């Protein structure tokens, strides 16, 4: 009995841990999507954030500099995406797909040049890794996010950019600038999320270490109906399924591990089909604003 409750406790703790990168990415995606920019490139931002953070932490010995670098790398990649979707008005889904490909093509190239290995970065010693700090960062972020999104002017501006861009323009605020800021903020947050993958959840960058977490984060924000608090809960829930499937690997259990792995995707489809109550995307999601 004591053994079992201990097991459950450690399962819940590891759920919280693996929810951290999800939460950063999902909040990033939420800001981007609520401002009107479809965000399917979270996977790429996470990967590039994880790689950059591992490199910086390796050379400087500081995980905080790693997080900073991860954020910068995310901002840079989001900037590339912004150039195409906001300046040139390329289709957002096409551009997002390309950004993911770019990240997944560039990462092995960089590790090969820097470390002469096609995969991982060198393992980080314990003092260049995080122990608990990212968990507190994530908690602080979720409080801040709910406040900022509903209670501040800039949060409302982001909502308007995705719901009623024309109205925002009439009110004298540039939709384009709002979307630029939101997209870059998304890159920063997802980059930090990636940094926690390589400096908090593990001790190095390894190839494809995101393993679809960017898409799970997207699923979480959709499952959370594009709202901060439900998105937080969705991240916990998907974190739990992730922790559970890690626990079930190699164990002969009644439930196949693959079934647990696909649960987040299954739930998201069911939510999108409107079976858990209405789930509505921002009205102007994916639309470019043509002025004049």
């Amino acid at each position: 009995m004591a053994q079992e409750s201990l097991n459950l406790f450690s399962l819940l703790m590891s759920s919280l841990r693996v929810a951290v990168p999800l939460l950063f990415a999902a909040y990033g995606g939420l800001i981007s999507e609520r401002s009107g920019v479809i965000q399917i490139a979270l996977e790429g931002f996470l990967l590039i954030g994880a790689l950059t953070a591992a490199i910086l932490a390796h050379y400087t010995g500081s995980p905080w500099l790693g997080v900073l670098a991860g954020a910068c790398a995310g901002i840079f990649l989001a900037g590339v995406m912004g150039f195409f979707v906001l300046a040139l008005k390329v289709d957002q889904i096409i551009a997002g797909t390309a950004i993911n490909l770019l990240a997944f093509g560039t990462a092995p190239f960089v590790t090969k040049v820097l470390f002469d290995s096609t995969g991982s970065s060198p393992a980080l010693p314990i003092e260049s890794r995080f122990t608990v700090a990212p968990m507190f960062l994530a908690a602080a972020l979720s409080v801040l996010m709910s406040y900022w999104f509903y209670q501040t002017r800039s949060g409302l501006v982001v909502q308007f950019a995705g719901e009623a861009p024309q109205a925002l323009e009439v009110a004298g605020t540039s939709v384009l600038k709002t979307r630029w800021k939101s997209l870059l903020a998304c890159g920063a947050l997802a980059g930090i999320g990636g940094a926690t993958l390589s400096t908090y959840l593990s001790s190095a960058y390894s190839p494809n270490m995101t393993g679809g977490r960017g898409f799970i984060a997207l699923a979480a924000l959709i499952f959370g109906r594009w709202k901060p608090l439900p998105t937080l809960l969705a991240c916990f829930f998907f974190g739990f399924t992730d922790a559970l499937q890690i626990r079930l690997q190699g164990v002969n259990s009644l439930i196949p591990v693959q079934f647990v792995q696909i649960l987040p995707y299954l739930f998201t489809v069911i939510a999108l089909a409107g079976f858990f109550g209405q789930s509505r995307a921002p009205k102007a999601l994916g639309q470019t604003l043509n002025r004049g």
Partner: protein
Amino acid sequence: MKNSSAWCSILKSFFGFVVGLSLALTLTALAGENPLHVLVVLMRSSFGSSYDFGLVLFYTTSLVFTGLAVCLPFQAGLFNIGAEGQLTMGALTMAAVGILWPALAFPWAPLLAVLAGVFVAGLWGFIPGWLRASRGSHEVIVTMMFNFIAAGASSYFIVGALKSTDSQNPETASIGAGYLLKNIDPIHGLSPDSPFNSAFLIAILMSFITWLLLNKTVWGYELKAVGLSPEAASTAGINAKKYRILSMILAGGFAGLVGLNEILGSAGKFRLGFSPDYGFMGIAVALLARNNPLGIIFSAFLFGALQKGATDLDLETATITRDFAKILQAIIILSVAGFYAAKFLDSSSENSSVLKVSILTRIKKWLKKA
């Protein structure tokens, strides 16, 4: 007018491709490689021998199928990024049929497998299409989720019911000999050591059929009308939902035919990770071809050659890995899409006609002053 815009598209695709390729090659210089040498390796590895060329055509075959799977829903106004999941389900079903009834004889065996595979893959396209039409669920997200669900299903069956007993690799058992296209293959002999097979002919045939369907039938006309404006099409009495669902079913079926090339045509089993993301490459293929089914043959060939070339770069250069194919694809996608979006070279676009009018009025004013 129609003709000149077609030429415009071809020019833009061409420029987009060349600029993208050059940019990606320049990137290799940063890693200390000679971009020209990289280009030479890319070319040699695609066209150097009949084996190499056979492999390029093998990739081309799968890419034609996934290109069509993206193109058709696009014409109906939907974005199918689920070709990867659809092809996984199709290939998995073909392998399952071939393993469950190994004794079936030649002409009927592959026919049954293909029908079953296309049916299941079509179902994998139908569900997102139906959810979109009846419940308004965004097809991009649903097809993306379906990719992951398909990946989970394939890994479940590969380690479970369809497991190979005589191999440690993550792959299914082999299908019955009667299922293999090799039983009568008129073109495999052209490149006997490569996986190139007669599925290539089916791919070309499908491109032509799709082209005819879209351009020479009422069905295709109505489908494109739905893509241009679902509201206007509905007003004109066209059942937009029906066309969107149908386009997704057909797309799933096309993607499922990748299994014909991979399972029945060459490998004879389902190997985990056999697809180098054919489904996502299909987006690039359709984009470069501007969703023209005949153009897809050419753009699939170009991306097939790049895919083959990049695997050889791994061996022939110090710093470039096979993942370079992804960089190439990404930069070419962005460059081609950028060329289209920038309305550059576009004689018929709104922007330039507005520009022309304003220039004309300015000239008139200037003349009056003079």
